[in-house]
């Protein structure tokens, strides 16, 4: 059965990794966890989309998306002045920047993936039906654009696209804007709570009791989950701003998950803190956003996260009306980082939210909670990449460059790599990661052989392109091994990634690089000494993905490192 994902690179990596694993006696199965595409929810270090860096978030700032300030806060008013075509064009551009593709069609095909034929692929789109006629909720134009892409480009059946809010009935405000046949509307089915998603099914959580979720998400019947959130502050349980002072894509899933016996509530998921200071971590919020209903599936179910910040709530809480015109859309693949950045770059920016900023307590408590959005998923404050632009100053997209940023996950040296695509496994997790400036832009897509092992050294690029017939040199003595530049490259053509760790022994080992698909390779860092180095792309539009093996999973990294050393020694021994 043909599928619609882009498995080639991942399969290659899995194969390569499995080979390495086999050499060291490690079950290849376990590599599936490392290389993501989990079927069981969040796994540390997983990439939501192998071609898109989890950390990469695009923000379009365009004052023309709203032709005028909405006259009031009503739902009709929120939509009346939205320039649907401008929103659609911007979403295309954002998708291109997110994926580093030069055409919108390629970009959307990179973002949306399914293991099924498109004609039988099922899509759920989360919205926010809470509140009244004046509550800020995602605008119609965004869902329309997404469904246009799904239906017209990819061939998804409108009857297989479901707009839902399990908690607050989405039919209330969206029904007039939906049709299965009218292409001027959102071509989708609207679900009365979970009725079009198989009803509710109990789920067991550690941090909340008596919770249910839409059955079709729990059971994996939904292939793609689209998460669109309004941009709103949240004064938190008890008015203590306990969710990072915001309700964005992660909080939107209080409404995918609900109270088990009372579907119209998500009260059990709300954290009671009784005024505690500092506010406690919203653990249930994190747990549901790691759940297989959201991040399970292969490909991973939740494939795009959008924050509709055309207007935003500052002082007005989650059920209230918008109070600032913010003229922005935000797009990424990984909700925690999308939210972290949208909160910091929009909601907490008093120049943007000048008409009604978040109250002081909200600012204070956001500083406590928001970093948890990263740390709970293994990221650091230096990781998120915010790329904001205006339509008259769109960052250049250079296919083949910048596709890969070796997110440093590994340190490395030594290591093995194989011809044209053998990836070096290994390395130990790297921490830190200050962003380095990338090296020379890759010559994307060209046939210049990747220089494989010669690359590296922090930020130097491997000339991307095809066939990195590389190989690493593990200059003897290296005891740490193996870069994994498991890039997935967003751009360019050609060669599957090659990792080439070169280790010139010892501590100053220069990192390996990967040249994948014509991407600019990144240097994944060298030794611990160089660990902070993260080479971002050489070009302007950096790229996606990945990093070394599970950089947040020390045991795996260690095993891989050992394996890579063994592999290197075997190669030398055999003259390979």
């Amino acid at each position, binding site marked *: 059965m043909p599928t619609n994902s882009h498995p080639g690179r991942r399969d290659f990596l899995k194969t390569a990794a499995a080979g390495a694993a086999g050499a060291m006696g490690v079950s290849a199965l376990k590599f599936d966890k490392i290389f993501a595409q989990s079927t069981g929810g969040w796994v540390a270090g997983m990439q939501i989309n192998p071609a898109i860096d989890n950390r990469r978030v695009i923000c379009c700032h365009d004052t023309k998306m709203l032709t005028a300030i909405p*006259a009031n*806060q009503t739902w009709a008013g929120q939509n009346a002045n939205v320039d649907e075509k401008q929103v659609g064009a911007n979403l295309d551009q954002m998708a291109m920047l997110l994926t580093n593709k030069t055409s919108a069609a390629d970009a959307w095909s990179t973002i949306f993936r399914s293991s099924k034929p498109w004609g039988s692929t099922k899509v759920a789109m989360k919205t926010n039906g809470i509140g009244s006629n004046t509550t800020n909720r995602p605008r119609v134009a965004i869902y329309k654009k997404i469904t246009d892409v799904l239906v017209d480009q990819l061939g998804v059946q409108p009857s297989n696209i479901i707009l839902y809010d399990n908690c607050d009935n989405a039919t209330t405000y969206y029904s007039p804007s939906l049709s299965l046949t009218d292409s001027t509307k959102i071509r989708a089915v609207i679900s009365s709570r979970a009725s079009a998603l198989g009803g509710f099914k109990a789920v067991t959580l550690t941090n909340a009791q008596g919770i249910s979720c839409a059955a079709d998400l729990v059971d994996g019947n939904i292939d793609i989950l689209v998460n669109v959130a309004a941009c709103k502050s949240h004064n938190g349980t008890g008015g203590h701003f306990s969710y990072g002072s915001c309700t964005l894509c992660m909080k939107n899933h209080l409404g995918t998950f609900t109270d088990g016996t009372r579907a119209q509530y998500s009260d059990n998921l709300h954290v009671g803190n009784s005024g505690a200071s500092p506010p406690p971590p919203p653990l249930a919020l994190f747990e549901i956003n790691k759940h297989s209903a959201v991040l399970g599936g292969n490909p991973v179910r939740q494939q795009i996260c959008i924050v509709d910040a055309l207007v935003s709530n500052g002082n007005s809480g989650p*059920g209230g009306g918008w109070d600032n015109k913010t003229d922005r859309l935000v797009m990424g693949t990984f909700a925690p980082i999308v939210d972290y950045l949208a909160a910091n770059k929009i909601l907490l920016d008093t120049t943007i939210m000048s008409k009604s900023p978040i109250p002081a307590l909200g600012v204070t408590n956001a500083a406590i909670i928001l970093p948890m959005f990263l740390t709970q998923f293994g990221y650091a404050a230096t990781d998120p990449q915010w790329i904001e632009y205006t339509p008259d100053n769109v960052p250049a997209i250079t296919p083949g460059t910048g596709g890969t940023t070796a997110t440093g996950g590994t340190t490395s040296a030594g290591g093995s790599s194989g011809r044209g695509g053998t990836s070096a496994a290994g390395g130990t997790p790297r921490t830190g990661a200050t962003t380095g400036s990338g090296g020379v832009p890759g010559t994307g897509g060209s046939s210049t052989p990747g220089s494989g092992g010669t690359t590296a050294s922090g930020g130097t690029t491997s000339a991307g392109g095809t066939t990195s017939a590389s190989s690493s040199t593990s200059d003897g003595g290296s005891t740490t091994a193996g870069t994994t530049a498991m890039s997935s490259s967003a751009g360019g053509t050609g060669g599957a990634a090659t990792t080439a760790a070169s280790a010139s022994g010892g501590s100053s080992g220069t990192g390996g690089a990967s040249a994948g698909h014509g991407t600019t390779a990144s240097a994944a860092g060298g030794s611990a000494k160089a660990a902070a180095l993260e080479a971002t792309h050489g070009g302007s539009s950096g790229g996606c993905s990945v990093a070394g093996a599970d950089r947040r999973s020390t045991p795996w990294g260690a095993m891989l490192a050992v394996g890579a050393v063994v592999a290197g020694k075997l190669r030398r021994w055999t003259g390979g």
Partner: protein
Amino acid sequence: MNRTTLSTLCVAGLALAAVACSGGNSAGPTVLSPTEFGQKFKFADNELPGWTQAKADVDPAAFNVYTSTDDLVARIDGAADAYAGFRVAVFQDLMGPDPQTCNVVTMDFVTAAKATDKFTYQKDNGATTTIPGYDGTVATASTNLTGINVYAHFNALYFELQMSGYMDQSQNLDLNKATSAAAQFLAVLKTKSN
């Protein structure tokens, strides 16, 4: 004991306390049922000239009465817990002269102290705009792009008005117009409170 149980006990206890206090701090000498309370504070169409309740086809939630924090979550999400301790809450969405809107929230907190606490919380969170005719310890507002959010308390009752549609021709907030309208709403609510 879970929060729902606590909330139920709390509401029940507060209701008993209200009865014991012979109505001195509540909405009237007799504690009104939630339905009665809702009808008392519901604005009839044109009770304020030009203002009518939003039609059900565009706003099914135009008029609701809530009696617990859990119920309120369905309306305002996790923010509901900020209102813990109310006995009855009435939410009504009104449409005024186009494009003006006003969502009126009336809550019986049973005691004046609790209503004052809630008001003080809002005032401390940046609501500092004066409403004509009202002392800043009784009513105040925060501003936004197209309107104002008003907070007030009379005895054991706490009020919020979320008002939008008050931009002038230059697309700036017409603060005088908004606060004047707010004063009219508060006058009606104060009368109803007595």
